[in-house]
């Protein structure tokens, strides 16, 4: 992290001490919701055209109507996802946001917090501080996003980016990686949304900042 950016971020945090999530995090989060909604919905429709497993996604929860429609949505929303993702990652590093909020993640803390969470004794009093399980989840989903984008690129351009495709074990393997990265993100979303519903305060903080 650069000193100046961190100072600005800290100053902002200090000046508006009640702000739990800075504006750029909230805007990026909002854009992510739209992008993920379109990418996953259209991705399921694309999957149905040539399923990797013995199941398909019910039409009602897919986006695009048919393969071409889904592809149009997918390759439009990808820009939203990628541009938003890059801005988020750059700002996260430059402002020191990641360093302060998401690190360090210690195994000891994870075990302790997981135990507390499962026995419903995990504190949520201070929304601006993440517990170890949250940190693990958020870092995990960021990694899953990076993998889903990279494997998507490997499937989209297996000739122009053939080295990347090779990194994923070839074209066919990259499709599986893309699928499992999506599954990991969907798994995260299920827990994430459930918890946001259980703790509406956290949802409010992500919308209004307070």
């Amino acid at each position: 992290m650069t000193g100046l950016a961190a100072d600005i971020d800290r100053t902002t945090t200090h000046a508006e001490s009640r702000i739990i999530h800075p504006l750029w995090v909230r805007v990026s989060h909002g854009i992510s919701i739209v992008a993920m909604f379109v990418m996953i919905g259209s991705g399921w429709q694309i999957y149905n055209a040539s399923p990797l497993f013995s199941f398909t996604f019910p039409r009602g929860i897919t986006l695009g109507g048919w393969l071409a429609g889904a592809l149009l949505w997918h390759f439009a929303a990808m820009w939203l996802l990628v541009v938003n993702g890059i801005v988020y990652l750059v700002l996260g590093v430059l402002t020191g946001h990641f360093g302060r909020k998401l690190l360090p993640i210690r195994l000891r803390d994870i075990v302790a917090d997981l135990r507390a969470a499962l026995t419903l004794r995990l504190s949520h009093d201070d929304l601006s501080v993440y517990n170890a399980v949250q940190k693990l989840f958020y870092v995990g989903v960021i990694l899953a996003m990076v993998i889903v984008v990279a494997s998507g690129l490997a499937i989209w351009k297996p000739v122009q980016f053939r080295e990347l495709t090779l990194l994923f074990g070839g074209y066919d393997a990259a499709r599986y990686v893309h699928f499992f990265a999506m599954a990991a993100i969907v798994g995260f979303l299920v827990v994430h949304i459930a918890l946001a519903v259980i703790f509406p305060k956290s949802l409010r903080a992500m919308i209004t900042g307070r």
Partner: protein
Amino acid sequence: MPRIRKTPPGVDPKLLIKDAAKLLPDPARRNFLRGSASLGALALLTGCDIVDGVSAENVLRRISHFNDGVQAWVFNPNKFAPVYFESAITRPFPFNAYYSEDEAPEVDGDTYKLEVGGLVDDKKRWTLEELYALPQEKQITRLVCVEGWSAIGSWTGTRLSEFLRRIGADTRAKYVWFVCAEGYSNTIDMATALHPQTLMAFKFEDDVLPVKYGFPMKIRMPTKLGFKNPKHVIGMHVTNKDLGGYWENQGYNWFSGL
């Protein structure tokens, strides 16, 4: 998945869904309306004014066109698609078309004459015998279908770039348009047409191209999705006008490069 049910201000959801559905062929349109497909349209179009003509279809088409440009820019004429050993060939190689295998057009090889037109010096028609006499090379590459699956096949034929040179084609032209016996057609960019791996394929696995794989000639481009590789080609035109294609006109991305 969260379900966004709020309609953005100034957007009539009924109008929006109608616009979004225009893009789809008829059976899909009904499903589009029934499914949650329109929700994404609403989410993405927040703030756009439908009355001004900005419809979901137009937005998506425009982005797809933008993606054509990005892909043309990413396309490296010196980048080769991976080639494979004979042992990697997918057997049986899948048949795929918008018609069933027994509906594949039967072209008479004896009377076949490839029609050449547009911005070329020599518009003489080519018999199969003359085409077979051209220099040929074998290539084992992966065919990637727009549906997602892929298969490795072996095609033998003449480089399209070599053929274009022989007919005196204006290679500064933007496109090459292919016409097929069954009424299929598509247009490709000149850069791909000139790629060394782009072949006029006459053989599949060392045998004369079977009817199901596109007898007498398939344009094989390992740098493009399968549907951009026309079968049963009977005509070829060098042009500066994008004449579209069977699937492209229905909404598939035009460039569809790999």
